[in-house]
């Protein structure tokens, strides 16, 4: 579904990604692990096209997207859920939810979203940023579910949230898988990542240095600990 080869990216003068190679297959949940500053978020931003400069190759279902603007990339079926969640203060919860245009027929309608996230339904007319951190994260994920996007780039959904909320996010990610979304997940919280993901890529200094499938996780724990320094 997604094939990234030799991806490089820059912020101003600083060269952040030095040739990232990764693949995500249809229906998979794949994580990007690594320490702070390894280039995980930048990889995701480079895929959706919001970095200043990038080169290399990003193919989505065979289409080369490296030269496309972010709105064109989104129209192909890729959605970005940013680390800071991106809930709009000037829009109500409902406006936030309905904001992203539908890009393909979706299997998830508003009723289904309200069933999955009953908290949101109760607060449709309040300003988006009046929600709690966990609710904002749910809203950020929910609004993408209705667009019919096929690949979600999910950046640190558990950051700063309480354990009980993190469990809820975990169930949400499972729900994404059930409705057929493919997820590329950036995560600092390895304990969370290991409960949801099929495969883990490890990043260091702007490169992918290892790939560990779920089945090999137990055997690779020492290696992983040395990468992550935990």
């Amino acid at each position, binding site marked *: 579904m997604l094939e990234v080869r030799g991806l490089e990216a820059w912020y101003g003068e600083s060269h952040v990604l030095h040739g990232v190679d990764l693949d995500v297959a249809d229906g998979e949940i794949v994580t990007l692990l690594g320490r702070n500053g390894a280039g995980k978020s930048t990889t995701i931003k480079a895929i959706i096209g919001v970095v200043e400069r990038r080169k290399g190759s990003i193919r989505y279902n065979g289409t080369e997207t490296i030269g496309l603007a972010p709105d064109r990339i989104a129209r192909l079926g890729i959605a970005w859920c940013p680390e800071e969640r991106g809930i*709009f*203060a000037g829009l109500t919860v409902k406006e936030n939810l309905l904001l992203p245009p539908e890009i393909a027929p979706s299997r998830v309608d508003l009723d289904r979203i309200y069933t999955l996230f009953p908290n949101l339904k109760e607060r449709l007319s309040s300003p988006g940023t009046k929600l709690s951190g966990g609710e904002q994260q749910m809203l950020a994920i929910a609004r993408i579910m209705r667009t019919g996007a096929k690949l979600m780039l999910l950046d640190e959904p558990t950051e700063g949230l309480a354990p009980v909320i993190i469990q809820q996010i975990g169930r949400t990610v499972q729900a994404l898988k059930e409705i057929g979304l493919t997820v590329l997940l950036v995560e600092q919280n390895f304990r969370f990542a290991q409960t949801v993901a099929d495969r883990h890529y490890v990043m260091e200094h702007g490169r992918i240095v290892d790939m560990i499938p779920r089945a090999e996780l137990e055997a690779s724990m020492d290696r992983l600990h040395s990468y992550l320094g935990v």
Partner: protein
Amino acid sequence: MTELWYDLEPFLQQGTLGLVNGAFYALLSLGLAVIFGMLNVINFAHGAQFMLGAVVAWMLLSYAGIGYWGALILSPLLVGLLGVAIERTMISRLYKLDHLYGLLLTFGLALIIEGVVRNQYGVSGLPYGVPDAFRMPPVDLGYMLMPAYRFWIVVVSIMVCLGTWYAIEKTKIGSYLRAAVERPQLVQAFGVNVPLMMTATYGAGVALAAFAGVLAAPIYSVHPAMGANFIIIVFAVVVIGGMGSIMGSVVAGYMLGVVEGFVRVWWPEASATVVFVIMAIVLLLRPAGLFGRK
């Protein structure tokens, strides 16, 4: 009671006439606010584009025989298209730079537009009559008789301001606009063509200025500096209302027109200065403006 009414009457009359100026302040500061909110550009060419709206109305009448009602549609359209061309070829290159560059560029454009009009038509002003439809007895408001055309200006400006407010606050396109003001990159990553939206916003803001120019043509003489006279006050209005606030710019526009009218009764010499005094006070007490966030 009769005597109190007698005392209040000049205030009511001048306040009502002040609404006519207020209508122009509101329309112009609305356009500035929309452009600033979306593009982060302080459009110094706004006054020149207002003037161009009036000049194009005069040209349509003189060269093509198209009257007031045609000009009210065509002139904003033509000047708005010029705005689109300006945004595409020049302003869009400045988004990543400091505000100052956008201000300098549009200031330069204002000088060029005014210079071209001055060279072509001189400084004495071009005649543009009140449209025939308004050659009727003044509207009787009870405390005064208001010329029909001025009454029309107040009514149509309120309609346009309400329409713009509705479009921004209550429609789907408006929600893209409000969202893109906060996080343009994310809105674009949702699949919305944000650069196109920015071009359209600038075009619409400029068209609004030209619309105000056509409205002004029959009551102010059409001359190259007519925009420059207005725009300084309008910048003060935008600051008082709160930079980038749609509601603030409209309410402050009408309010300051009325305040100017009141001051004209009580101390005529101060009426031209009062807006700037209010601006200074607002900046001291509420630096973000009356309706500004933060």
